[in-house]
């Protein structure tokens, strides 16, 4: 509960119109898929922000942070609210800082190939401007939420996606950031240069810190020339094991823009999405399919597309190999990007809520362990009689699993927690990470000690206390094991 006098001060900072304490608005800012489902059966998950404010500029952000330090307010920075780890959940209440008004592209510089933007700019909107600038440019980190996520959210989560194998993650494109630390201090991190080893790399520390160290008010991002052409090679396989093996062979030949694997349930989900985009395009339902995306000049992409097609063709477990260009190429990647959300159709409509098991959404393991992870994951899920899917960015060892648990009581919440623990143990025993690209938020934070070592998490906490000594920024995330995060009452 925030005192009326503090509320009045916040109103003075952002303006009446841009502050809300209406319970309906607050509810909309207070849940992700997992917490919403859990709240249905367990009051402990009834999360509620105290206020939402929408600053318009860096000075307003600074004033809010200064006030938060004076009055011990908690601040939860929020982009588009499209992350999967509960990063934006106001689990201790507080003030949600919504950046949707700070959505201006300040500068596009084609001399030095960088853009300066405010954090609320949509990746999609910046992409459109860059495509239409000069000879055409892009920032190819391309997360699955590319159509809806903000640049600020991408930086805070070091977002990436299918093209990480070739183009890396958001941090590879951030040249510098204007930030306001938890102390209220305005700090610029990084220079307008690609290479610098002058001092500790605090810029990299900041990228992916999930709004726990400071708030981004402006970012300079490098952009690259847009490739001349794109092409996709699609092949179906009668086993996941073969698909994983063949992806390795592709990697030995070329580092493509993407190598994606999807299983049969994901193919169904993609078909359901495709049926709305283009009814003519129907994917075959096979045990596994591989999508390889190539980008570059026409000749090189065509040559490699044919080589990869031949590689697939020589494999007796492959079938229906196709080279997709133009609209077909675009549609299949749109369907792939929407595959996560579309997979939630696997749940039958029923009165009881179902929740994703959040920790299993996003693992990464060494390439040689991908198939082991998939197989053992399948065994565990089958032992619990759960429907599950397997998909992933095979190129970089990043696997996404999706399964849901029906929640009828608090006991189911506990069971879900136990299952999550079991799966995390599996991933870590194979030398993997519990979060390859979706972030930690609250749902994966409890496992950081297992993956990184308790002493490392302790060091992280010490760093946090330098940037944000009063722990006002995004509390209960990453550094602490929150009661919500461990599914334990």
């Amino acid at each position, binding site marked *: 509960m925030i005192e009326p006098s503090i509320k009045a001060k916040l109103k003075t900072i952002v303006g009446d119109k841009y502050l809300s304490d209406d*319970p309906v608005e607050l509810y909309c800012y207070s849940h992700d898929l997992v917490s919403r489902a859990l709240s249905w059966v367990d009051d402990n998950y009834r999360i509620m922000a105290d206020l939402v404010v929408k600053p318009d500029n860096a000075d307003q952000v600074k004033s809010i942070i200064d006030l938060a330090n004076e009055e011990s307010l908690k601040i939860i920075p929020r982009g*588009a609210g499209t992350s999967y780890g509960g990063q934006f959940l106001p689990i201790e209440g507080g003030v949600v800082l919504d950046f949707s008004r700070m959505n201006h592209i300040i500068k596009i510089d084609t001399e030095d190939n960088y853009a300066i933007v405010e954090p609320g700019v949509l990746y999609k909107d910046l992409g459109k401007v860059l495509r239409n600038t000069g000879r055409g440019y892009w920032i190819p980190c391309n997360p699955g939420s590319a159509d809806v996520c903000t640049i600020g959210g991408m930086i805070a989560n070091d977002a990436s996606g299918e093209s990480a194998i070739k183009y890396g993650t958001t941090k590879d494109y951030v040249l510098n950031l204007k930030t306001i630390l938890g102390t209220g201090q305005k700090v610029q991190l990084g220079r307008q240069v690609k290479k610098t080893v002058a001092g500790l790399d605090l810029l990299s520390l900041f990228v992916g810190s999930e709004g726990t160290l400071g708030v981004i008010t402006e970012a300079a991002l490098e952009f690259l020339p847009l490739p001349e052409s794109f092409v996709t090679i699609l092949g179906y396989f009668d086993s996941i094991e073969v698909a994983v093996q063949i992806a390795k062979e592709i990697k030995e030949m070329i580092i493509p823009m993407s190598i994606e694997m999807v299983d049969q349930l994901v193919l169904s989900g993609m078909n359901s999405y495709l049926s709305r985009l283009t009814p003519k395009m129907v994917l075959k339902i096979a045990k596994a399919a591989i999508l390889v995306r190539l980008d570059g000049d026409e000749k090189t992409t065509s040559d490699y597309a044919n080589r990869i097609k031949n590689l697939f063709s020589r494999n007796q477990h492959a079938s229906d190999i196709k080279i997709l260009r133009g609209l077909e190429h675009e549609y299949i990647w749109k369907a792939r990007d929407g595959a996560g959300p579309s997979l939630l159709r696997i749940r039958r409509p029923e009165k009881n809520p179902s929740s994703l098991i959040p920790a299993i959404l996003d693992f990464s393991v060494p390439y040689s362990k991908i198939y082991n992870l998939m197989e053992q994951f399948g065994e565990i899920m089958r032992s619990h009689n759960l429907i599950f899917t397997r998909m992933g960015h095979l190129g970089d060892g990043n696997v996404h699993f999706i399964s849901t648990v029906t929640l009828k009581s608090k006991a189911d919440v506990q069971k879900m927690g136990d299952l999550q623990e079991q799966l995390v143990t599996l991933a870590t025993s194979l030398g993997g990470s519990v979060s390859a690209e979706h972030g930690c938020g609250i749902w994966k934070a409890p496992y950081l000690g297992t993956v990184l070592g308790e002493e490392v998490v302790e060091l992280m906490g010490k760093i946090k206390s330098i940037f944000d000594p009063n722990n006002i920024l995004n509390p209960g995330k990453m550094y602490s094991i929150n009661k919500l995060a461990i599914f334990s009452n």
Partner: protein
Amino acid sequence: MREKQLLGIIWKCNLCGFCPKDMECPGYDEDTRWESSFARGKVSIVHAIMQDPDLRFQNSELAKERLFSCTGCGHCEYICPSGVDVPSIIYLGKKKLVEADNYPEAHKKIVENIKNHGNPFGETQPRDASWPNLKGNVNADSIYYPGCMAIYRIPEIALHTLKLFEKLGENIKVLKNETCCSGILYRTGHNELLYDLTNSMLNEIRENIPKQIIFTCPGCLTAFKEIYKSELKEKFEDTKLLHFSEYLVDKISKLGDLKSKINELLKTTIKGPIIWHDPCHLARGLGIYNEPRAILDAIQLPYAEFNQTKEDSNCCGSGSGVRSAYPELAEKTTIQRLEEVKELGAHTILTACPFCEYQYKSVVEKNRYDINVIDLNNLLSELISLL
């Protein structure tokens, strides 16, 4: 749809936020960009209402404004990767708010009018005096259902349609107990009134099952085809329910050599270029977008397309009682469309929905746009008169 089923649909929404946050969602507030103003927020509001022991959400002004400002255009459902039926979730939320007597005053008036007069406008006369006497057609096995908007607000649509039926030699009748389809009641959360207010009309249909019922209003067709099915279990198994464009598409040649008069029409009655507007209920809701185009192609009428078309088309801003409860919001959406029409260089919007036509016309008039709006059947009828 039963509440239990709708709850299941809520759980299909994973709050991913892929739903539109621009002109594709008429209710989205571009100025303040509050989360509650687009589809994901609205689903959250319904969720909150469903677990609301102290009724703070059910009695909320903001919940009322957000849910009742949804036109039910279904663009969010089309865009959603999970295909979540957001409009149905929002209808459930509206129903809950109606139960708490928390709904717009304008809708109270609509409900009263339908209860008392059988139409949402409160008109006391059965229909425009210029309607031809169709009593002689009592044995016809085809029914024309014009809908309230064409009866009371744009009678030209109904009159021109009757002219087309005549030219085609179709023996049709209208219902004796014709009343509002009451789709608006479902879309504004008053499902419980549907049975009482449509029963005598539906009994008339049940007693003498027609071969086909032909509609010029996509909203009415949706009520008969989908709402009656889900809410009243009325399936019309032995009756074809057709939009006029579906009915006409393979009979167009019977209207005569209309293409020979296109140039004359464009020189005299209609100012080109013409742009085709896909009504939401027709194109996205019922998947009827090829038929009107096939008709236009058959008569060789040159027409332009909006940037987004067919199932992906944008809403005119009317629908689900938004025009009556939140006229400014409806107008803002319509203006976005009219600006697009201007940008694309068109002068006439051609459509096949009385609600879209009425909304466009009133905003055009109020804001003095140099744009005409015409119904497809009016255009065809005008062509016939030039033969």
